[in-house]
């Protein structure tokens, strides 16, 4: 927890009173009342769809509440007016950055603050203001650097500075809303963000910190407001709470940690020999989960494409049970590789097509599902029903198998993809040999994450080798047996997760010398 600043005062800077918002039949916010004190970090915790985004969108004037009102610094805040929110000193940092890559830091901060009728922008004054704020909050940036040259952590710093500087002409923001700010950061960058938050609090600002990651919310918040299904279910003091309690509040039922039955790694299933420009070597055995950790954009995508059978590696080879397969996805699927792509919407499913057609997407031309070029629709629908039942895919009640797949929630879409991959051939029902899962729980809520983890562990117990590509260390520590870190296409040796320390991981992720002492 970040301690409150000495300036914390009794009068709340922000008061939300009985905010209600309905989208059609969905009650997104149900009479939510919240107060934010000066100099505090309020954690806003909830699963996807719990109403967090709707609530801050109302607060920031993107939506108009159906009922309820908002007061900032004792004054009523006019609804539906982002300009008024800015003028009242509310700044917002969105999950997806809103910076122009080809402009400098200063230009980005000035964007939107300059009146359009003025013939010349006032760069000198803006520069002074930016540097002032940078010094005051300890957010060091070079105003003339181009955004495209900055790291993700630095970009976020610019976003925060922009929110701080542009919210009001004179004083700057007093209230900062951060939406899932750590989603794109390395552990070290996240640490640095938490330091920044401390500085902000010390300067008397108030922060609303939105996240679905329990550890972070516990670490930075004084109080934690938990949303579930559009309702505020509890506001708890971080000091007296713990992960289990928060998880239960968030989901509405106790969450079982994934369990696995102990099993020694079996025979060699897949071997990567000197693969790609970075020369990756890795062995995957039946019955073990090997995780690839690393910051996004360090070669995970290429690695996944080689193992999905989409691309042939430019160098080296991938052997599956001693065989080298051509870069044809269907060959890999037929050979027993279950593939879970990172982007489930853009790559995993065809959103426009119904659920049952997506369930056969990888195997529609196998004898079980088509004969002589004609689809066996009844068999395919039966197969889809099987997948839906065994993998608990929900959201098809009203339209049945004809439900367009894009109408499914992220979790249910992932269950469909998982089921499609793990069920294997609809005739033989053979368990997969190798599972390649690229960020399988990205953007899922806790319940769905636990489900995916359990499925991977169960498949592993039944003899599958699992390669888990993940940016989430919690996930890796929860289910992986061994872990390797990827940096710019190079992979450290895979070691049992228990042998890795946090500093070693941080060093490896940053490309530091890998300790080869433990290798094999």
């Amino acid at each position, binding site marked *: 927890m970040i301690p409150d600043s000495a300036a914390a005062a009794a009068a709340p800077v922000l008061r939300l009173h009985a905010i209600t918002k309905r989208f059609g039949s969905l009650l997104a916010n149900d009479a939510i009342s919240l107060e934010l004190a000066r100099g505090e970090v309020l954690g806003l915790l909830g699963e996807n769809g719990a109403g967090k985004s709707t609530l801050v969108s109302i607060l920031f004037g993107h939506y*108009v509440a159906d009922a309820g009102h908002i007061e900032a610094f004792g004054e009523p805040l006019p609804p*539906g007016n982002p300009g008024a929110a800015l003028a009242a000193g509310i700044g917002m940092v969105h999950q997806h950055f809103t910076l122009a890559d080809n402009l400098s830091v200063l230009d980005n901060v000035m964007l939107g603050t300059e009146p359009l009728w003025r013939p010349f922008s006032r760069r000198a004054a803006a520069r002074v203001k930016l540097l002032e704020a940078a010094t005051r909050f300890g957010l060091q940036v070079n105003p003339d650097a181009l955004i495209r040259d900055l790291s993700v952590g630095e970009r976020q710093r610019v976003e925060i500075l922009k929110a701080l500087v542009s919210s009001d002409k004179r004083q700057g923001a007093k209230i900062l809303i951060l939406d899932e700010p750590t989603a794109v950061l390395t552990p070290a960058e996240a640490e640095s963000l938490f330091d920044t938050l401390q500085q902000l609090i010390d300067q008397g600002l108030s922060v609303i910190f939105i996240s679905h990651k329990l550890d972070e919310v516990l670490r930075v918040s004084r109080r934690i407001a938990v949303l579930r299904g559009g309702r505020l279910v509890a506001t708890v003091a971080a000091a007296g709470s713990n992960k289990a309690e928060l998880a239960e509040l968030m989901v509405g039922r106790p969450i079982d940690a994934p369990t696995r039955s102990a099993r020694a790694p079996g025979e060699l299933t897949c071997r990567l020999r000197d693969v790609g420009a970075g020369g990756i070597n890795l062995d995957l055995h039946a019955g073990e989960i090997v995780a690839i950790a690393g910051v996004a954009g360090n070669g995970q995508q290429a690695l996944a494409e080689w193992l999905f*059978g989409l691309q042939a590696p430019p160098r080296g080879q991938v052997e599956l049970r001693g065989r080298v397969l051509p870069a*044809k996805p269907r060959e890999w699927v037929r050979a027993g590789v279950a593939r879970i792509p990172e982007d489930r919407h853009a*790559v995993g499913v*065809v*959103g426009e097509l119904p659920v049952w057609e997506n369930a056969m*997407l990888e195997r*529609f*031309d196998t004898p079980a599902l088509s004969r002589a070029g004609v689809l066996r629709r009844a068999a395919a629908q039966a197969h889809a029903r099987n997948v839906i039942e065994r993998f608990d895919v929900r959201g098809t009640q009203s339209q049945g198998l004809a439900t367009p797949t894009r109408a499914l929630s992220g979790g249910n879409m992932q269950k469909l993809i998982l089921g499609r991959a793990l069920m294997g051939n609809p005739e033989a029902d053979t368990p997969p040999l190798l599972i390649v899962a690229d960020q399988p729980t990205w953007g899922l809520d806790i319940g769905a994450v636990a489900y995916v983890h359990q499925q991977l562990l169960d498949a592993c117990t039944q003899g599958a080798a699992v390669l888990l590509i993940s940016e989430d260390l919690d996930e890796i520590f929860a289910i992986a047996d061994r872990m390797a870190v990827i940096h710019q296409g190079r992979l450290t040796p895979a070691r049992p997760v228990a042998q890795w320390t946090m500093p070693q991981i941080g060093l490896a992720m940053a490309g530091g010398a890998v300790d080869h002492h433990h290798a094999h």
Partner: protein
Amino acid sequence: MQLGAPFIAVAFTLLFTSVLVAWAGAPIGRAYALLIEGGFGSRFAWSETLTRATPLILTGLAAAVAFRARLFNIGAEGQLYAGALAAVAVGGLHGGSGFDASPWLLFPLMMLSAALAGALLLLGPALLKSRLGVDEVVTTLLLNFIVLLFVSMMLDGPMKDPTAMGWPQSVALQDGVQLGKLVARTRMHTGLLWALALALALWALLKYTTTGFAIRAVGANARAAAFAGMPVAWVNVKVALLSGALAGLAGAIEVAGRTGYVTLDMSPGYGYSGIVIAMLAALNPLGVVAASVFVAGILVGADSMSRAVNVPTYIADVIVAVSLLSMLVATMAAQYRVVFRVGSGGVPHAR
């Protein structure tokens, strides 16, 4: 997509064009009554409408199947002419008599070569798109002009009919390979049955076959289709061949069923109208049949309306064009719900 969208679009179109009718100085009610009567009001009107609908069904199918796979074939007009020319090249009276072969052999050969000519014409742009990323809208559109000029050259040169008194028109087809009349003393020919059969076949192909499934998947999300192992490039080639062949057949069937020879004005833009029809039909092959009959009826009806109340026949083109635009808007409106708020200062937003 909602089924109501085409009907809303058509209703809006008639409302909008009534302003233009009024502007032309005609009584709106009477003008529309004449339009509908001229298109659908008598046995003769129906025969003319269905004759006109025949090539439109085929070009509509060509556009529908291509658009399903996100291959934007704007070149059906050129493919139609290429097909017509190929048909005459095989089945025409060259040198006074033409090829000496049984019609049982010659007719299929003629249709096949027309389909092939249309297909090959679209193959180039499709390959340029998949290999080099060249925009197929531009290439197919511009190919129309090249083909028309080529046809013009052929009609004034090697394929010119020496008995046509100098008119640029091709030699006529042999008698044996012409399509029969469907109803005596009308222009309706058996090409209509061909078009209906092809619509049914295309509908079944898309719904029931692995090829159709691949076409739909590739069109809706090529990345996901590629991930699942579908041969995206090969699917695109197949779609191009299919779409071009359908448009080529439209030309051959027009020649074999109606005109008997190729002229430069044999198609009043059937290739382009096919795009409108495909959109009105929401790319559904069976919907293409209905939309073709509708558009053909408007075109035919506008002629008789224009004769009676002196509204320019161009009103038909306006109706077809506006119905395309309103169909696009209606399709969008069916996908999004536009919420207007009054007095809150919020901007309208779509969900």
